[in-house]
């Protein structure tokens, strides 16, 4: 009897200890907090600090040089071109993305197998890797034997160098990015439309509100939280674009399709100029911060929530 009681006691104690460990909130959140400190906060300080330093891992240089890195990037035409390209890319992919997303969403938000099927089909590229999408489209857009040039030619239109041409490279990349993203945008728009309660359509119908009037006065204002979400995530996402550039154009030809993050990658990883890369990262971070601030203050208030 005594032995059994002792075993039961130790079992209870062990269980008690384990229970204390899993019951302690600090233990539960410790892995998450440690990982964030190591892989987000520490890197953030690293970026801010090294942007004011001449830092070279290979040669072992690390000294303070003030604003020289910032001066260097803002007098570098390649960086300024990449920054400008990023704004063009953002405006076009987010702008057309939302416009077409709303049009597709309004069009596809109907009952019926064909509408559902089409929605599923256009969503497909969203879950496929940029590697697959890029390889697939580089074949369609191949200047020599691609299908796109064949179609243009058979319609009697001039062919294009697509991602191999300086004037058309950024355009080609944007087409593919738009094509990949529209399924997602329209899916979110449809979800937003379905969140509008039916009685609102009902009373709008009673008021004989229809067509553009219905769209402009009732649907779009009620859809504004959805559109706002798409705007913010779209802008932040487009500023972080890397994969498609690295795969389709490598920023070229002649820097014509380089974007901010890809420029940072090339400068830091291929030319080993860490300082300017870090300064550009700070610029990128500042842009993201401004967008997030606008998100919480100015725009947030103008959005119509029910």
């Amino acid at each position, binding site marked *: 009897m005594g032995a059994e009681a002792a075993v039961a006691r130790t079992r209870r104690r062990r269980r008690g200890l384990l229970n204390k460990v899993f019951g302690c909130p600090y233990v539960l959140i410790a892995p998450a907090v440690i990982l*964030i400190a190591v892989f987000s906060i520490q*890197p953030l300080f690293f970026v801010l600090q090294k942007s004011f330093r001449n830092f070279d891992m290979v040669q072992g240089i690390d000294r303070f040089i003030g604003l020289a890195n910032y001066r260097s990037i803002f007098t570098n035409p390649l960086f300024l071109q990449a920054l400008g390209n990023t704004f063009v890319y953002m405006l076009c992919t987010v702008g057309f993305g939302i416009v077409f997303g709303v049009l597709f969403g309004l069009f596809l938000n109907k009952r019926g197998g064909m509408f559902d099927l089409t929605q*599923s089909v256009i969503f497909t590229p969203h879950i496929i890797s940029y590697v697959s999408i890029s390889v697939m489209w580089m074949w369609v857009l191949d200047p020599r034997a691609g299908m796109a040039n064949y179609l243009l030619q058979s319609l009697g239109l001039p062919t294009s160098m697509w991602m191999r041409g300086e004037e058309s490279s950024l355009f080609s990349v944007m087409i593919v990015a738009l094509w990949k993203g529209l399924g997602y945008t329209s899916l979110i728009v449809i979800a937003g439309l379905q969140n509008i309660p039916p009685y609102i359509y009902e009373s709008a119908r009673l008021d004989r509100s229809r067509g553009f009037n219905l769209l402009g006065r009732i649907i779009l204002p009620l859809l504004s939280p959805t559109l706002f979400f798409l705007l913010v995530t779209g802008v932040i996402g487009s500023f972080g674009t890397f994969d498609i550039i690295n795969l389709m154009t490598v920023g070229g030809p002649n820097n014509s399709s380089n974007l901010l993050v890809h420029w940072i990658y090339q400068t830091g990883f291929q030319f080993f100029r860490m300082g300017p890369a870090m300064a550009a990262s700070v610029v990128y971070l500042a842009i993201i911060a401004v967008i997030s601030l606008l998100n919480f203050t100015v725009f947030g208030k103008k959005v119509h929530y029910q």
Partner: protein
Amino acid sequence: MKQIDGTVEVQGPGGWKRTLFGGLSLVLLLLLILVYVFPFYWMVTTSVKTFEEAIRFPPTFIPRTFDMINNYRAAWTMANFPHFARNSLVITLITLVGQLLVTIPAAYAFAKKEFKFKGFLFGFILFDMMIPGQVTFIPIYVFLSNIGWLDTLWALTVPFFISSFGIFFVTQAFKQVPNEVIDAARTDNATELQIILGIMVPMNKPVIVTISLFTVIGKWNDYFWTLILTTSSKVRTLPFAVKSLFALGDGINMWNISMAGNVLLVAPLLIIYIFANKQIKQAFVYGGIK
């Protein structure tokens, strides 16, 4: 037709209008499907053609010569697919398990426990959500290179155990579980671990499945981080197998073989999507709007 409010809806001339509208809709739908299906069709047909036919201009819409077996065999062996597929599977699985082990306990603490600095620590999570990896990749590279993790499985998994989006998302869901349920379990002598695994997780299955789906798709498709954190093909994943088949620059590509490799990369995801497209789309809506 008489309406409840007494207005009369004009139905007469609506008949042909409706037919016209239906016809136009159908044309538009087919056009949209064509724009989205054609690149895939073009990839698949190219992958079964002989090299001579694949690069012929003007191109052939329907393949006339077939070299399917050779193309796929070439892609499979040239790019060493089994090696990359194994890496993809291992890395995706480890990341998923690690992420759930970090996310679920943290979400439980934030949702159901009171403790000092809770608000501050949750703010820490929210702050992390706003820092994009594209800002921190160079410091992470430097750090992992200093501790000798570059080009190892660790580098491609451990940093991705943290998903602040996942923690935020699961915390919101865990808050919905009534406290009475947890208290009742405690009076029945349930341990904390039993509460997490027996109540919190089963009651929030859809959310857990949703974040798992994001992790799996994101990790399976990842290109950026694998490019940054690897220096050889030792731990690289499937997208790099396809990339290696693809001669960048102006050289003539073996398009038929590249496309065969690409089909092998896309097929698993496409098959899953065909069978679970409702659930996958639902997860993206859920993850987006909430």
